[in-house]
């Protein structure tokens, strides 16, 4: 029997109203405009694994992350965590208990840490709010433990966030996420603002903590090398949809979707193997007016008439007519 996944995302959607103000619409006769930031995506995350979402800017990664942690309501579909749909109002108590097991780490740790609180208070807050400690003494001990765990000194608790570097602040954000005994951590570009050497420290730390506490990560990044290093499975997003899902090794060894191939080809070759990069065509189209059919078709080297008419469904891990019909998609 296979274990039930910890997180199940079912046909998740999010539409934003990006219309001009009502008065302008009336005067200019402009219609209402909607942007489908996330357009029906489905995937599972197993316990203890790292599932990554990659894709260009604007593909909808952060919108998915915010819906998964409940910061943003979905326009459609479901997020089910440990069997409980997080939007199910009839199970409010269960959902509340669930929430504390989910934490989020953002790209800019400074923005998510209260600048007026000392670090010890920032980390203690979830411990106090969730009554995870019997006494103030125990709270303080726990804060000290958490700081050591993420490679800081217990005495650093007396300082304020601005006294730390970017990498150290990200460590504080991780310590706070662990303070609530979170099992599932959604990380939105956790190292994108950091130097490569600091990034290595944070990625190593995240993996150590995962091994130690069996954490499950939803890991979002546009850096494919980072994703390859961290993820067991990867979903590739394009304009609000998942176009390919595969386990990490397979995706990098045998990318199937033309967009995945294009992304992989665009990564600068640090090993200097002499591999020539393929010229990338075009940029992500306007999401308010996405192309018909397969939204990748204007950039796709393998496009044929069916692609312009029909949106390809995600089947067996890939959403592409050419792949489905067995047409050649290798360069």
């Amino acid at each position: 029997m296979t274990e039930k996944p910890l997180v199940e995302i079912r046909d998740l959607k999010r539409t934003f109203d990006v219309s001009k103000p009502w008065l302008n619409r009336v005067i200019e006769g402009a219609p209402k405009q909607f942007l489908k930031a996330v357009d029906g995506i489905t995937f599972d995350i197993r316990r203890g694994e790292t599932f990554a979402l990659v894709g260009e800017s604007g593909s909808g990664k952060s919108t998915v992350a915010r819906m998964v942690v409940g910061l943003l309501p979905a326009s459609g579909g479901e997020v089910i965590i440990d069997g409980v749909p997080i939007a199910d109002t009839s199970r409010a108590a269960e959902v509340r208990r669930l929430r504390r097991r989910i934490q989020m780490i953002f790209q800019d740790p400074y923005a998510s840490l209260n600048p007026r609180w000392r670090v010890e208070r920032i980390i203690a807050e979830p411990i106090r709010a969730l009554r995870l400690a019997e006494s103030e003494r125990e709270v303080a001990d726990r804060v000290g433990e958490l700081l050591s765990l993420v490679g800081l000194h217990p005495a650093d608790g007396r300082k304020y966030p601005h006294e730390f570097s970017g990498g150290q602040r990200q460590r504080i954000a991780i310590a706070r996420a662990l303070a609530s005994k979170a099992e599932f951590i959604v990380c939105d570009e956790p190292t994108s603002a950091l130097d490569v050497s600091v990034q290595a420290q944070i990625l190593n730390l995240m993996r150590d903590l995962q091994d130690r506490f069996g954490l499950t990560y939803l890991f979002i990044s546009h850096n494919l090398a980072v994703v390859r290093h961290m993820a067991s499975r990867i979903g590739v997003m394009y304009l609000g949809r998942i176009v390919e899902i595969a386990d990490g090794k397979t995706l990098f060894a045998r990318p199937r979707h033309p967009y995945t191939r294009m992304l992989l080809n665009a990564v600068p070759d640090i090993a200097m193997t002499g591999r020539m990069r393929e010229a990338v065509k075009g940029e992500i189209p306007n999401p308010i007016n996405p192309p018909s059919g397969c939204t990748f078709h204007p950039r796709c080297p393998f496009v044929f008439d069916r692609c312009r008419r029909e949106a390809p469904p995600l089947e067996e891990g890939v959403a592409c007519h050419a792949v489905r019909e067995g047409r050649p998609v290798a360069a």
Partner: protein
Amino acid sequence: MTEPVLSVRDLRVEFATRRGILKAIDGISFDIAEGEVLGVVGESGAGKSVTGSAVIGLIEPPGRIAGGEIRLAGERIDNLSPQAMRHIRGKRIGMIFQDPLTSLNPLYRVGDQLTETIRTHLDLSPRQARERAIELLAEVGIPAPEKRIDGYPHEFSGGMRQRVVIALALCAEPDLVIADEPTTALDVSVQAQIIALIKRLCAERGTAVMLVTHDMGVIAETADRVAVMYAGRIAEIGPVADVVKHPLHPYARGLMGAIPSLETDADRLVQIPGAMPRLSAIPPGCAFNPRCDRTFARCRLDRPEPIVPAAPADAGHRVACHLYDSAEAEALP
């Protein structure tokens, strides 16, 4: 021997602060030849941008160039008047920054900004300047340039805007381009296009480029030589293949190992312990010594100067580390 386009000798830049004088750049030297791309990498705060600003004469108080020389095609430019420097900037040195919006005025049409800059530096009529602008936009890969030239910056995507900035940097046909993180804000797909563009223009026009970036992949693909900076000094400089594939300086080794790669599997990334010291607390001797796993007594006393490594290396390779001093050669791995 032909003169390098840019020659920097023993450059020092200081900032006067309440806590005293901070040495942001502490004696660095390098050259960039015609048609050459010098990549500059290193930790945040190492002094990459300050070096670029010094070359284009944009160090502002409380900062100042405290020593050394900067030569453009043999002529000293570090002691020019602001007036004379303004003329060189844009005309002989082009600039590309991370955020294209800092270089583009949102209120002006792209075409007006281009023609104005072209006419400031080249003796052309408005019509000729507009034609030149359209040519430039085409050259940097903007489709339908004769239409797009009348658009405003916000009507362009991030990648397209960066292309416009590149067109702007190139419009006076400069000898040298300083590009500070030109692709950091862009997606990999667009980044690849911009890098290819910089490379092509450099090859076709013989422009010298100083390319500052965090992205070692971009360096590996674009640069001919690379300088690794640490705490205001150059730790290692040399041909890109040598420095990226076989770095010598312990900091450069750590930096290269810290980068996750698409080609190789590693369970853990190489991790350099600790963080770069603050400028106000640079340790004596080698600035890297508290984080280095090879430190020995001399590292805490003498500041290492760039030397040709004792190990076999390309003639242009320099490393500022006592391990590579022939007197210490027995300490080599």
